[in-house]
C-alpha cells in the first residue's frame, strides 16, 4: 500500500517499529480475551489488522511474539519507573515514586499486565524464565536502599528478591481476581512493605504517611 499522495513517506524503521508494537498489543488483547494457550497467530493477525506475512516478517512464532511482548512491557515499565524515581530526591521518595509509576502503568494497561504478570507464568519455560529476569530488573533499584539503611550489611542477601516477589504476587492476585482498578490504591501498603526492612517499621510508616 502506498502512502497518501502529497504526504511525506514514513521511514521504513518507523513503520517496522509501529508494526511490531501493533502486533504486540494484539497478542496482549487476544491473550486477555481467551488465555494465551488458545490464542493463534490467525487471531493476532486479525486483531492487528495486518497480513499473515507481516507477522512472520517480525516474529518466527506465537512464542517468539510472546517473548517480545514481555520484553516490550519490561522495558516500558522500567523506563517509567526510572523516570519517575529521577524526579525525586532521596531513596525513600524515589522508591515510592517509582513504584507509583509502575502501579499506574499496570492499571492503565490491563491486557499487557495480564499477559506479562499472569499468563507469562503458564506460557512455557522460556516465558517463565523471561518473567524471572524481569523481576530481577527491579532489584538494583531496591538495593540502593542498603546505603541509607541503619541495618546495612546485616540485611539478608535475598531481601530484594523477596520484596520484588511479594510485590508482584500481590499485583498478580489483584489481576487474577479482576480487581485491576484497585492496583493503584495498593501504593502506600506496598511502599511500606518495601521500606520496612531497610529503615524499620516506624520510619517506613512516616514515609508512607506522606503519600
Amino acid at each position: 500500500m502506498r502512502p497518501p499522495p502529497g504526504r511525506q513517506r514514513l521511514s521504513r524503521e518507523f513503520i517496522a517499529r509501529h508494526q511490531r508494537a501493533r502486533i504486540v498489543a494484539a497478542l496482549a488483547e487476544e491473550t486477555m480475551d481467551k488465555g494465551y494457550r488458545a490464542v493463534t497467530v490467525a487471531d493476532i493477525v486479525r486483531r492487528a489488522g495486518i497480513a499473515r506475512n507481516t507477522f512472520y516478517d517480525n516474529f518466527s512464532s506465537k512464542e517468539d511474539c510472546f517473548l517480545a511482548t514481555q520484553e516490550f512491557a519490561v522495558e516500558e515499565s522500567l523506563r517509567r519507573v526510572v523516570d519517575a524515581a529521577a524526579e525525586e530526591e532521596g531513596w525513600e521518595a524515589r522508591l515510592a515514586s517509582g513504584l507509583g509509576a509502575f502501579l499506574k502503568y499496570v492499571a492503565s494497561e490491563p491486557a499487557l499486565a495480564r499477559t506479562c504478570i499472569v499468563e507469562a507464568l503458564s506460557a512455557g519455560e522460556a516465558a517463565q524464565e523471561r518473567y524471572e529476569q524481569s523481576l530481577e530488573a527491579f532489584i538494583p533499584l531496591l538495593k540502593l536502599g542498603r546505603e541509607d539503611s541503619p541495618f546495612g550489611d546485616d540485611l539478608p542477601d535475598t531481601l530484594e528478591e523477596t520484596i520484588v516477589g511479594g510485590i508482584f504476587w500481590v499485583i498478580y492476585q489483584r489481576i487474577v481476581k479482576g480487581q485491576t482498578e484497585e492496583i493503584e490504591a495498593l501504593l502506600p501498603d506496598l511502599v511500606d512493605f518495601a521500606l520496612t526492612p531497610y529503615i524499620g517499621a516506624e520510619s517506613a510508616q512516616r514515609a508512607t504517611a506522606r503519600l
Partner: protein
Amino acid sequence: MASDQAEYPPELSRLPPGRHGLPRDFVVHNQRERLIAGLAEAVAEKGYGGTTIADITRHAAVSRRTFYEHFDGKDECFVAAFDTVSEQLRERVDEAFKAEDDWAHAARAGIAAMLTFLAAEPNLARLAMVEALVAGPVVVERYDAAVQTFIPYLEAGREGRPKKVLKRLSDSTEEALVGGMVSLISRRIVAGQAEELESLLPDLTEFVLAPYVGNDEAAKIARED
C-alpha cells in the same frame, strides 16, 4: 504390542511376589500413589509439557489400562499429584507450627518445615512450585489457593501486638510476605538449587517476622540455632 509387554508385570510389580493377599482397596490406593510418584519423576525429567502417559506408567510400573482406571488423562493425574504434595506440605508446616508456644518461633518452625520438605523432595518441589504454573488454569487456581492457605499462620502474628504495630500492618501484609517467600523458593527451585533451600531459613524468618516484632528482634530470632 511390544510396549505393553515391556511394562509387564503390571500393577503388582512392586508388591511382594506370589499371592500377596492384600486387600483390593490397598492395591488400588497403592497404584494411585505410584502413578502420582511416577508422574512426579517423569515431570522432573521432561517437564510437564513433554511428559506423556507412557512416561508416567513406565515410572510407576503399571499398565496403561491401570492409569485410565484412575485418571482421565495427564491433567487429572497432575491435579491429584499437586493436591497430594500441597496437602502434605501444609500438614508438615501445621505440625511444626503447632509444636511451638510463641508465634515468632512457631512461624520460624513452619518455614523450616516447609524448606526441609521441599529440599528432601526436589521432584515434588518442582512439581508443586514450578510445573504447577504451566499445567493449565485448573492447576494454577489450585496453586493460588494453596499459597493462600499459609496466610492464617502469619495473621496469627497480629495477636496481642501493641496497637501502634497493628495500625501499621495493612490488609495485604500477609499476602505480600507469603508471596515473597513463595517467589524466592520458586526461583531457587528453577535454578536447580532445591536441595539447598534450607539455607534460606534465616533470611526468610527475618523477612517474615520483621513487620510484627520489629527488625532487631526478627534478626535475633532468625539467627538462633
